[in-house]
């Protein structure tokens, strides 16, 4: 048991990586603000790591601290910084935020399509840390009622219905062998290959890897019929089964 009143546990969170290519504070702040305004929900208090490993020239500690402050003032939470281990600046131990090791992260570009010439110097990337997760499938045999929430770390299989006002979430796929009347969110950790299958599409919301669609739109495509939902080129497709 816990004698000390706390427990130390490992945890993995999805963070945003701010990769600086050229240091121009005003430009960075301007373009970053523009990005945030597009999806304020996503960035609000989002943990962010500042990465200066791609910078061609060095950066002074004063400049770097100003950058941290500017980024924080945009409503992001700077949790650390990264640098090329071969090229660590002399001031590395005087920075107020922790230096994080370079990761084996794979990156997914979530930036909207921008023509090459107007491409800003700041690139915001969502980083998904790679880790081994046992793909456990959860099977639910009873109706999921309004107000209930079910989450599976792998696939989620519901043998009956998902009522209106209920929510099912899975890191993997979601199968509903009844009416899907509530909200279904597949690939919640960013798996763009995840899909939703249901016997009768009557959902309030369907989402795959954060791309969602509401019932208003669904009603025009497939309604009260069996359907699958998948992500094709960043947009949701609803296909009758």
């Amino acid at each position, binding site marked *: 048991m816990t004698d000390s009143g706390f427990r130390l546990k490992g945890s993995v969170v999805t963070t945003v990586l701010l990769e600086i290519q050229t240091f121009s504070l005003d430009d960075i702040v301007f373009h970053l603000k523009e990005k945030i305004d597009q999806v304020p929900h996503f960035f609000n208090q989002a943990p962010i790591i500042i990465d200066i490993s791609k910078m061609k020239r060095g950066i002074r500690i004063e400049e770097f601290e100003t950058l941290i402050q500017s980024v924080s003032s945009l409503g992001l939470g700077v949790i650390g910084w990264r640098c090329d281990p071969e090229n660590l600046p002399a001031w590395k131990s005087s920075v107020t935020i922790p230096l994080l090791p370079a990761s084996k992260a794979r990156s997914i570009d979530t930036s909207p399509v921008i023509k090459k010439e107007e491409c800003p110097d700041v690139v915001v990337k969502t980083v998904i840390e790679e880790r081994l997760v046992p793909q456990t499938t959860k099977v639910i045999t009873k109706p999921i*009622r309004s*107000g*209930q929430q079910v989450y599976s770390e792998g696939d989620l299989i519901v043998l009956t219905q998902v009522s*209106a006002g209920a929510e099912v979430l899975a890191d993997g796929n979601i199968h509903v062998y009844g009416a899907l009347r509530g909200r279904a969110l597949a690939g919640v950790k960013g798996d763009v290959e995840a899909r939703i299958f249901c016997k009768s599409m009557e959902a309030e919301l369907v989402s795959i890897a954060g791309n969602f669609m509401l019932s208003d739109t669904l009603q025009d495509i497939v309604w009260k019929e069996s359907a699958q939902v998948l992500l094709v080129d960043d947009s949701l497709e609803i296909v009758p089964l």
Partner: protein
Amino acid sequence: MAKIIVVTSGKGGVGKTTSSAAIGTGIALKGHKTVIIDFDVGLRNLDLIMGCERRVVYDFVNVINKEATLSQALIKDKRTPGLFILPASQTRDKDALTTEGVQEVLEDLAKEFDYIICDSPAGIERGAQMALYFADAAIVVTNPEVSSVRDSDRILGILQSKSKRAEDGREPIEEYLLLTRYHPERVALGEMLSVSDVEDILAIPLIGVIPESEAVLKASNQGAPVILDVESEAGQAYIDAVDRLMGEERPLRFLEVQKKSFIKRLLGG
């Protein structure tokens, strides 16, 4: 061993107390010793519907607090043999219901009674959760309209997750749907959900459809459970529901729009 049946709905005003009174009376009429407990502490109504409000001296909370014994608080129904009422307190609130206190009272009642009907208050908070916590079966009272159906769905979720049976990992609570205030004319006009719509959404067995009826209001005001009004459609529908609850098969009645007779139409009725 007594069977504990909670009459619940989530939403208020759908007919829980009317149904508790009718079903409790119906079960007692079949010769089973039955007690109806009013869990709506602070909004005591069951005694009015049962017509015993003038005989309330001690109540459920007094028994929990050991200020009175069960036999002092139980009110014997004057009309139906083998039927007792345990009234709620009007001057207290739902926090007076402690899990241990309720359990003790139910255990004592179980020694003497065959059926214990718990009339739940509206909502999903403490009062409602206490009423359903020890239940073996639940009658979910629903009106054929969307908000009532949604709330019933919510209560069904709570029955599955927050009852003692669920916590102990025993057989889940038996769930039955009782559709009340059903208005075939308005269903035909598409203004109300039909029986099959509600069954489709809630997906639990139906034990009765009670038509909207003036007899219900009349019975409430007279302080006599509507099931005793055997002439009325509502009374007959409750008799059917009790029969089904006891495992008998009864065809559904009063679901069709009734054609007005020639004479009624002549008289402009």
